[in-house]
């Protein structure tokens, strides 16, 4: 192997390890944050026993998942039953690969982007991975051979297919404005300011409707409240993962939170200017600021997720479908039309 290729492989492996570590830590602490915040919303303390402020709770949960008995119920379709959680988690971890979290870093004369890979069709990769992710949910429900699981996964498949269309349509406005499918170029197209003081983020460039549609569709796509019908515990026990225990359940759980974080990163990149933000302070602070801005924006998004969960009740199934097809979908189409009209008139 020549030197360039060796460097490329080493840098990529380092980036993959760091990204996965960050993502999995973020997943663990999103769970902690959710329990803590929902606790406060409901006038409780949330986890507080393990470590200061319950900060070691994710570790304790992880150990518990590892040591629980790993049950495989009778009469399941074993290959698919085992494959479903693996598929869910793998796909949830893959899509983070195209997310850029900052500009470049230089170490030992090698300059690299803060992103595992920057490809021309980054956004399409994420959409593709999300569309495949339905199978994890669908197959788990079917292979479990349980009516609750089956109902949950039927609901989930219908819901994810319906909202995926809206999700894709809500992104078209942003794509028209930035003229690229590469996530890095989409962020770079948002640099600068409008009238000298408002940042030129897509949400301030007439895409707030698209942002709203994206938010709703993303909540539905990740099966979160108020769209969590696939796992509605009052009707379906736990929906598609009813029959799963121990680490296999934990894989679904991690996949859900990893998806939340990816969706948050995507919202940040597409609508909130990614890592862009005011730069100030000494040089070392300026160097890490882009990553900090990015983390802050994703944190706000996750906070919103939890806030909504603590506040809103669940939709009824027919309401969910009507909301998706009769309200969000036309809204997304209208946004696409208006954005393209404005862009065409300006050109």
């Amino acid at each position, binding site marked *: 192997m020549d030197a360039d290729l060796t460097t490329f492989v080493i840098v990529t492996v380092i980036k993959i390890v760091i990204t996965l570590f960050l993502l999995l830590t973020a997943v663990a602490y999103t769970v902690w944050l959710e329990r803590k915040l929902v606790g406060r919303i409901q006038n409780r303390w949330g986890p507080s026993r393990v470590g200061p402020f319950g900060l070691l709770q994710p570790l304790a949960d992880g150990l518990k998942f590892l040591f629980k008995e790993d049950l495989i119920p009778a009469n399941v*379709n074993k290959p*698919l039953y085992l494959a479903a959680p693996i598929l869910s988690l793998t796909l949830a971890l893959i899509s983070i690969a195209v997310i850029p979290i900052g500009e470049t870093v230089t170490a030992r004369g090698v300059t690299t982007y803060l992103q595992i890979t920057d*490809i*021309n*069709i980054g956004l*399409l*990769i994420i*959409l*593709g991975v*999300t*569309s*495949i992710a*339905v*199978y994890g949910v*669908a*197959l788990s*429900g*079917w292979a479990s051979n349980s009516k609750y699981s*089956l109902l949950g*996964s*039927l609901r989930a*498949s*219908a819901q*994810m*297919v319906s909202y*995926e269309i809206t999700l*894709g349509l809500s992104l078209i406005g942003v794509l028209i404005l930035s003229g690229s*499918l590469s996530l890095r170029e989409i962020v770079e197209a948002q640099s600068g300011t409008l009238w000298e003081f408002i940042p030129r983020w897509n949400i301030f460039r007439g895409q707030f409707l698209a942002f709203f549609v994206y938010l709703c569709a993303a909540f539905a796509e990740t099966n979160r409240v108020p769209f969590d019908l696939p796992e509605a515990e009052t009707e379906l026990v736990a929906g598609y993962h009813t029959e799963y225990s121990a680490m296999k359940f934990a894989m679904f759980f991690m996949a859900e939170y990893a998806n939340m974080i990816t969706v948050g990163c995507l919202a940040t990149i597409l609508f909130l200017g990614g890592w862009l933000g005011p730069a100030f302070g000494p040089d070392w602070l300026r160097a890490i600021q882009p990553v900090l801005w990015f983390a802050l924006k994703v944190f706000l998004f996750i906070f919103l997720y939890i806030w909504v969960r603590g506040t809103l009740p669940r939709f009824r199934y027919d309401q969910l479908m009507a909301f998706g097809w009769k309200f969000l979908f036309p809204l997304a189409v209208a946004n696409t039309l208006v954005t393209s009209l404005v862009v065409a008139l300006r050109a």
Partner: protein
Amino acid sequence: MLHQVLFIIFAAICVGGAVNLLAARHPINSALSLILVMASLAALYLLLGAEFVAAVQVIIYAGAIMVLFVFVIMLLNAGEEERTDGSRVARLLGYPAVAMLAGLMTWVLVRSSGAGGVRLGEFLGSTKDIGRLLFRDFLLPFEVTSVLILIAIMGAVVLARKEG
């Protein structure tokens, strides 16, 4: 070199999936093999440098159409199909016909190889190129196709509506 290895791997997965699609006894296994075929086809497109087509192949075929297949199989709770040994006519005519078709295709491919081969980056595969082709050069066929799909959707709605 790497290119060739990847092509052989994905082509083998593709053909294997297609064979399993026919041989599998449970409809869900057939559907999953078809997904495998779609996904490896996408990888083959990617190897040709047609990244947009590859992504769309995954999103539309593997992600949307096949989900509906799986959905219907799950909803109807279709079980394993029974094996019949097939009719005599099918066996007498079927095998020679398959052999003939395969032979014909091999002959055509072998004859035309070298003349019409496509190599990496030789044709228009980027998102921009495809957009330009669809919305400038082939605008009319594109719009006609969309009208056709619209008619199909309307037909489905009419058929699905309750009587009276």
